[in-house]
């Protein structure tokens, strides 16, 4: 594709990419944090230990701010299918519209009905229903993720469709579409990645309080849950889910796999580059340091497996930004490996009961929280850049999908608007979450927080 700056397709792609990357910073924490809230509410219900309720209450506040920004930045995503991608909507709307509508009907209604109840309704609902509200929110957020991933999986690996007489796509088998094998693998991989983000954030706040020697009971809870879930999710995101995802790409998008690895020559015993810069003009990887055979093994199961090279395909079938795709993929796997090492180390110290006294490790945990966000982002960039030049893989080119009637002038105008607005939203988010974290969870002891509840209840009576 022509990535010239005067090309209207470029600006529609840039706007969608910018708004969706920004948007997804919030849902990944929503989906990751939701099950921590469920876990703490469940522990509180089972043990009656007020510390768990305090933890849930504290994280619910951060969850609420995060959720609100996720909602407001999410609505433009659905609308951009029509505004900027009219060609795509016309072509595939009969298929992808099904899941986008289902997301609203089945997931968002559930989620948004219970979020208010969960955040403001603890006193009104009582412990059991408050726990159920948390489950409702968590299920809603994961269900919405599933519908979106089915939509994306269709773009990566279209199934269950039929081309109509007018050349447009319609759905033919709902079950095939909803149960797309690609969607299941992608969903598992993505949800584990969201849990990694959630657990790193929880652990980072725990580490912050531990280093400041504040809220010792709460910080211990956060560190314990954060490192334990963090290790499990970091392992699962790599194996089996990431591994299966790579095999899926190797099977259905071999040219993408070659581009992800910057491989121009096909061959067996294909290696994974640890370091190297793709030089597309010269058709080689500069300064490569490779683990021999690793790619053959990871993608196809044996070291002798043949891995295709880009030279086997015409250049117009290549993803249109091989460099960015290559770096995205390598950044993701490097970070993923580091996450496992960090969380294994932290979990080991935690198991020995020494995590709180390992200052250096707490510092690393505290500062590590942005990296899962980066890993999630570059992971999605790998998936979406790798899909190019197709919008629906093998069926429909990205260049045919954008709105021909919308001028670059209009798209750049709205892009500038989004950049300004989202910058302000980012500042607001940091300010408000920063205040909540600085203020910290309520009462360290059970007695204190129960007293809080009682005062609040008396106030309500007086009013």
């Amino acid at each position, binding site marked *: 594709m022509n990535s010239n700056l005067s090309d209207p397709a470029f600006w529609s792609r840039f706007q969608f990419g910018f708004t969706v990357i920004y948007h997804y910073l919030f849902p990944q924490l929503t989906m990751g944090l939701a099950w921590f809230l469920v876990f703490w509410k469940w522990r509180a219900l089972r043990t009656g230990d007020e510390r768990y309720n305090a933890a849930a209450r504290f994280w619910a506040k951060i969850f*609420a*701010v995060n959720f*609100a*920004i996720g*909602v*407001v*930045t999410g*609505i*433009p995503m*659905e*609308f951009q*299918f*029509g*505004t*900027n991608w*009219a*060609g795509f*909507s*016309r072509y595939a*709307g*009969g298929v*992808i*519209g*099904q899941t*986008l*509508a*289902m*997301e*609203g*009907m*089945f997931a*968002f*209604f559930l989620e*948004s*009905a219970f*979020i*208010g109840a969960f955040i*403001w*309704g603890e006193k*009104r609902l009582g412990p059991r229903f408050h726990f159920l509200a948390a489950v409702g929110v968590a299920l809603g957020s994961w269900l919405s993720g599933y519908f979106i991933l089915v939509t994306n999986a269709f773009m990566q690996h279209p199934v269950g469709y*039929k081309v109509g007489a007018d050349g*447009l796509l*319609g*759905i033919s088998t*709902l079950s095939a579409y909803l149960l797309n094998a690609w969607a299941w693998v992608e969903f598992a991989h993505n949800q584990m990645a969201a849990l990694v983000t959630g657990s790193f954030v929880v652990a980072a706040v725990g580490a912050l309080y531990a280093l400041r020697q504040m809220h010792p009971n709460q910080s211990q809870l956060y560190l314990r849950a954060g490192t334990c879930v963090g290790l499990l999710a970091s392992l699962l995101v790599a194996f089996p889910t990431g591994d299966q995802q790579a095999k899926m790409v190797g099977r259905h998008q071999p040219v993408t796999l070659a581009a992800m690895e910057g491989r121009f020559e096909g061959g067996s015993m294909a290696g994974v580059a640890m370091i190297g810069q793709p030089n597309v003009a010269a058709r080689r990887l500069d300064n490569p340091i490779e683990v021999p055979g690793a790619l053959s093994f990871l993608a196809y199961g044996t070291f002798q497996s043949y891995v295709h090279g880009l030279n086997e395909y015409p250049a117009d079938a290549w993803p249109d930004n091989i460099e960015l795709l290559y770096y995205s993929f390598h950044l993701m796997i490097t970070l993923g490996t580091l996450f496992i090492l960090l969380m294994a180390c932290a979990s080991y110290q935690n198991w020995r009961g020494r995590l709180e006294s390992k200052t250096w490790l707490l510092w690393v945990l505290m500062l590590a929280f942005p990296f899962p966000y980066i890993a999630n982002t570059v992971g999605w960039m790998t998936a979406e850049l790798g899909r190019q030049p197709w919008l629906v893989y093998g069926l429909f080119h990205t260049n045919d999908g954008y*709105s021909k*009637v*919308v001028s670059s002038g*209009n798209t750049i105008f*709205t892009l500038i*608007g989004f950049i300004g*607005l989202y910058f302000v*939203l980012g500042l*607001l988010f940091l300010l*408000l979450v920063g*205040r*909540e974290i600085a*203020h910290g969870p309520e009462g360290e002891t059970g007695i204190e927080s129960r007293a809080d509840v009682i005062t609040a209840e008396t106030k*309500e009576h007086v*009013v």
Partner: protein
Amino acid sequence: MIATWYAIVSLMLIVYVVLDGRNFGAGMLQGVVAKTSEERRQVIAAIGPLWSWHEVWLVGFGGTLLAVFPKLMASAFAGYYLALFLILWCLILRGVSIEVGGHINDRLWQGFWDFVFVVSNFVLAILFGAAAGNLARGVPLDANGDFSMALFTNFNVRGHVGLLDWYTVSIAIFTAVLLAAHGATYLVLKTEGAVHQRSATYARYLWTAVVPLFAAISLESWVVRPELPGEAIYNPICWLGVLIVIAATTTLISGLRTGCELRAFLASTFLLAGLLITGGAAIFPVMLHSTLSPQDSLTAYAVAANHKSLLIASIWWPIGFALATVYFIFVSRRYAGKVSVNRDNQGFY
């Protein structure tokens, strides 16, 4: 089948408009019905935790439109490009002002977000009104089913029209007044004290203002689309809409007179729904009327997805709608009654 889906998609839009319309209205009036910071919190609390639940109806509408009328979504959304993004930005600002305004107990902070809240609600009411006007008047569709519309051209209603012209602006003003009246009626129901009193006064004034404006836009609509009333007379759904409007108007008047707040609010909701049903039925089967040449207009039959896709959507949609109704009952029960700032405010500590 296609007519049914037209009705379903319209229904989702109508539910969104009556639910979020009251928020737009209440939000617009926040500056005049609430004088103190405490009172402004009261107005926010009346909208409070439900705005995202209301906005989901818009998302549900967008998704369903894409699934069943993909070609319409493609034409209309690309054509209304700038207007839609203005709506999206105002929705973002409105949501943010509700969520963050109560977080910091500070005069400047709350004053700023209250201002953003009022302005974004007002602009939203105007833009949705202009959008309704555009649906009635038509857009410059070409033979390919595409159009690209400027925000304004020469303010005429024929030929190469813009989003805003004398007709759509007057519809927008009518909509703003109508939604303000709806919002005032809602605030009467949900609040107590001074806000309640002032809202009741505004509700009376605004509903009175709706009457001449409605007469004016009816006349204007007849000038802009002279063929529509003649067709609507033979459409039973239009008559149903008119009946709902008449019944709702009488109930509304009696509700406001006797101080039956819930009755007045429900009547106001049905009045809005009745107006939209009448309008939606009158333009059917045309979904986008072409101001350039009527034969290029897009009908529901031309823009629908294939039969199989509609059939499949008919299986899951009722289930989703039934679930949404269950949540609706849960939500409205939970938030029934007057709001109290202490119990329902958004302040976190």
